[in-house]
């Protein structure tokens, strides 16, 4: 049987990789890719705590499903914003988008 620590360390590593992507990428779409990795790491933690805690209590899985819904909403709005900015400014480089209104 796999101990709980392995899942938690996998999730921590995946979260750190996503964090690195968010902090160091220039392209706004790539930053959103990093956010997806971080959300997935959280979901691994939620599912692992459900399985290793009380299986009869479904809070872990329900929370993971809420995270799915929030991730879908976040990606839809985030990519719409990126596409809208690209139409107006002709760039998706996060460093170049430095004015509040154009």
């Amino acid at each position: 049987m796999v101990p709980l620590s392995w899942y938690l360390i996998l999730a921590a590593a995946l979260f750190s990789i996503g964090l690195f992507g968010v902090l160091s990428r220039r392209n706004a779409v790539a930053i959103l890719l990093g956010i997806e990795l971080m959300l997935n790491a959280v979901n691994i933690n939620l599912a692992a705590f459900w399985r290793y805690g009380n299986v009869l209590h479904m809070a872990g899985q329900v929370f993971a499903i809420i995270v799915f819904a929030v991730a879908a909403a976040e990606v839809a709005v985030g990519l719409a914003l990126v596409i809208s900015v690209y139409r107006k400014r002709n760039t998706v480089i996060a460093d170049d988008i430095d004015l509040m209104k154009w």
Partner: protein
Amino acid sequence: MTAEQIIFLLVALFTLGSGFMVVTTGNLVHAALWLVATLFGVAVVFALLNAGFLAVVQVVVYIGAIAILFIFAVMLTRKDMRDQGPQMNRGWWVGALIAVLVFAGLFFLLQGWNGLSRTAAAIPAGFDAVAELGNALVSPDAFVLPFEVASVLLVAALVGAVYVAFNRK
């Protein structure tokens, strides 16, 4: 080392390797495809955790919808498919340092927690996780309110995304 541990290690290695490719590869379409590989690895992790419904939803929603949305966005935000210039910003090593520090901090916190080496109890006989999950989602005693709030959030995000990306001409 049992077979389950070997499978877990292989899946974890695959997931982390493709996750690393997502954040480092220069070509954004390739990054989106590596994201599909990572999400698939996470789906296998869900299956290893006996969370079958989450594994299926991961494949359908994440790989089927979100990853494809990413590929669409990559293709809509460029004039030609090649990526020009560096893909990392100048302070990328600061980001790497922060990421390593966060991992080290989480690892240190986990080391000090006594529930870490816990093993999972066997699933009770006759326990149907999907039915229990469905009951929990619509039961007034459990999570019907967050479930409805999530549906409102999805509608709001849908309307907002259409409004933001709408081309007024």
